């Protein structure tokens, strides 16, 4: 009996776009349901743009953007945001770096002032640089060196899959590279990449469009115009022979494995990319998904499983080249080869027999919930729309994603599964050096 499918609902967040004379692109998405706002500034530079010998520099520079600016002493940014009742952060991705605040809406002008001030120029000093190199080293120790599975697989798999420095290198950076960074490097990096023409500002939430537009003109209008730099070509050929490596993690108590396959260009070939986003969920979302049923429940060869698009789990804010990733933690003594063989078998079965009745529809309904849930937070909307504007010129795509995901067909998911062949796979195994 064919099953009824849930109707996929949509959001209708309004979108206003304009560009200032200095090239800064602006997206406004008002929503007056709560007295809060999100403010995001996204620069079109990320880990892939780091110079050789300067691994981790994009992230280190992100830290330096919080160390004071033209009219603001060190610590002032934090105090002004939090003293207005807000929270802030920044994050460095493969293709972009974002800076953001979420605040009560009476702090709109203050947030715009703070972002404009550092867009004009951060205070880059030797003292601040040394201090933040120390902080970043502690961040790497917490997240990578002092814990099991640190950097697995987002830092450990790219060098297996890719050959060129931009795609393959460690985005957190080596301590040597971080320690040899200079103030002059930072000034160059700022001049080149932190240009008004290379940035997008997005404001979401409890704002009046006319008033916000005027405030944005007032604060960002006189940021000196600098054009966006040319974006290098980061493409690499697909794999034709499987690549496999392994390493021992001395803190890890259980073996683990991750595999990745290249996928179509998320920007230039979105229609063919989207089925892979759905495929990852068909394979791994919840107890009724294919690989969880097979590997976790039936074979018991895997104890935890995940599948997603993009090394940082960022399906809609990453450019080509990127990948579909599957990662699994195994029980003690587990057999990685067997797990990879079973994954191949399940992908074959999916490609050959297709999906079962209702399997796709329920996966799409669940994906709609996740997508809608992410947009409920006012800051989430600003961040996502800023990146969609930057990479696609299409911030309104945020409203369309649940529907577009819902339109992916059985045939497209099958065809996507058929491309995930072992010879196109890069895989990395974690040997449990901490097993007891």
């Amino acid at each position: 009996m064919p099953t009824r499918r849930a109707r996929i609902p949509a959001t209708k967040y309004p979108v206003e776009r304009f560009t200032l004379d200095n090239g800064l692109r602006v997206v406004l998405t008002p929503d007056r349901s709560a007295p809060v706002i999100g403010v995001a500034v996204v620069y079109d530079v990320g880990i892939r743009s780091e110079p050789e010998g300067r691994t981790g520099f994009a992230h280190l520079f992100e830290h330096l953007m919080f160390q004071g600016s033209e009219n603001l002493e060190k610590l002032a940014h934090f105090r002004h945001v939090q003293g207005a009742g807000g929270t802030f952060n920044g994050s460095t991705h493969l293709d972009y770096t974002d800076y953001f605040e979420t605040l009560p809406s009476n702090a709109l002008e203050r947030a715009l002032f703070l972002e404009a001030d550092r867009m004009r120029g951060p205070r880059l000093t030797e003292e601040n640089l040394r201090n933040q190199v120390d902080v970043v080293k502690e961040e790497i120790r917490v997240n990578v060196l002092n814990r099991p599975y640190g950097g697995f697989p987002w830092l450990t798999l790219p060098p297996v899959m890719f050959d060129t420095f931009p795609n393959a290198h460690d985005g957190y950076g080596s301590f040597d590279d971080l320690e040899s960074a200079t103030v002059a490097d930072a000034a160059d990096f700022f001049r080149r990449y932190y240009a008004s023409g290379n940035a997008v500002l997005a404001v979401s939430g409890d704002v009046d469009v006319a008033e916000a537009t005027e405030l944005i003109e007032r604060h960002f209008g006189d940021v000196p115009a600098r054009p966006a730099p040319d974006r290098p070509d980061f493409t690499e050929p697909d794999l034709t022979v499987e690549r496999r490596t392994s390493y021992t993690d001395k803190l890890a108590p259980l073996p683990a494995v991750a595999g990745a396959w290249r996928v179509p260009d998320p920007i230039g070939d979105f229609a063919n990319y989207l089925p892979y986003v759905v495929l990852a969920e068909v394979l791994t979302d919840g107890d009724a998904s294919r690989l969880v049923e097979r590997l976790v429940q039936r074979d018991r060869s895997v104890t935890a499983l995940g599948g997603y698009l993009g090394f940082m789990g960022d399906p809609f804010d990453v450019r080509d080249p990127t990948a579909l990733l599957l990662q699994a933690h195994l029980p003690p003594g587990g057999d990685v080869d067997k797990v990879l063989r079973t994954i191949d078998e399940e992908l074959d079965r999916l490609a050959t027999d297709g999906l079962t009745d209702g399997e796709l529809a329920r996966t799409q309904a669940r994906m709609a919930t996740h997508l809608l849930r992410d947009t409920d937070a006012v800051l989430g909307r600003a961040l996502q729309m800023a990146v969609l504007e930057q990479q696609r010129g299409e911030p309104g795509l945020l409203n369309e994603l649940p529907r577009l995901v819902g339109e992916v067909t059985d045939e497209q998911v099958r065809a996507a599964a058929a491309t995930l062949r072992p010879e196109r796979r890069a895989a990395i195994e974690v040997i449990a050096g901490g097993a007891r």
Partner: protein
Amino acid sequence: MTTTLPAAPRALPPLGPNRRLKLPKQAERTLANGLTVIAVRRPAVPLVELRLWMPFGRAHLARGAMLAQTVLSGTETHTATQIAAELQRVGGGLSAGVDPDRLMLSGASLVTGLDRMLEILADVLTGATYPTDWVDTERDRLVDRIQVAQSQPAHLARTALLKRIYGRHPYAVQTPEPDQVRAIRPPALRKLHAERVRPAEAVLVLVGDFQPERVLDGAETALSAWTGEGHPVDLPPAPALQPGPLLLVDRPGSVQSSLRIALPAVPRTHPDHAALQLANLVFGGYFSSRWTENIREDKGYTYGPYSAIEHSVAGSVLIAAAEVATEVTGPALLETTYELGRLASLPPKPDELEQARQYALGTLQLGMSTQAGLASLTSAYAGNGLRLDFLAEHAARLAAATVDDVAAAAARYLAPAHAVTVVLGDAERVAAPLAALTPVRVESA
């Protein structure tokens, strides 16, 4: 880079007028079976958030953990896979978690799927069967998960701290040992379910794009067949902190030390709570705190130091936590003790207090601005006998706290003389520097 400062520096724009805290539309009903249902309207996205809070104090540790791991593993009418698939069909999902106070079922779905999600929830609550094959699989997975947790410094530090704080109190151990989990069989889970998964004193919170009264009717229809008396437990109050030598737990080769400091605190309704919350912010409860500005932004010892008040049914405690480089473990403790002592001895500056106050008030607004945030807040409040209208009362107390109130709270609660300190790290390298500052007792992990 040399920036040329403009002749006339630009002035920071002032804040607009504060927006008043506005509570969302809500309705509440206690059903005949004793279940309290609270429905809160936030129509922003066409979804619903669900939190079911069930009192679970003094439940057997390993059985409780296994019950949470397997409660969704099947009923008389559905297998685990069918439960997951049926929930997915309406964009839904449920998960279970347990702590020393409560068992919690949480989830979200498309709002059009709420009735179906409640039906499935009712099926699980009244008819979970704990099938043997599933329990076998999930038992092994839980053991694996515990082993992974036990390899993580944050988990090891917390485990040591809880034991040190709570001694013989039930809160002292919150993660079962693998061998205890291995001994659990389905009959024990069915028995625990029958005894403890009950509507009396449980609270169901629903937040979403709906009319609250209508949703209460739906919940009543779906869940009225769930029955069972409450299970009164005798949970002793948490013991007062017993200061003593710093406990150093050895983790050979560790490149960082996990510093944990416990200090006394009071429940949300206590007259000192607002002032203590503000004192904690000034000390280490947000980025613009003295502690972060000192050991991160000035000294570079750490990435993310943080202190927070944790509320549990048996009592509240303030916990300050930082992961610091092994070579600066002693200096990091010195600065931490200095900052606690400074705030306990000298009143905060008025502008420091104002900044912390604005942060506390602003983040209340932010926390209420999503369905998920509202659901978690409403549920946490309800688990402690409070309702959302307490937010307004709390906001008023935050607004009214004076420098003297905050100084008094800091003197009473933040004094380093009252602290219980645990450090997890490489004893060979950090024992001597720590012993220069305070008596140290070393234990192996």
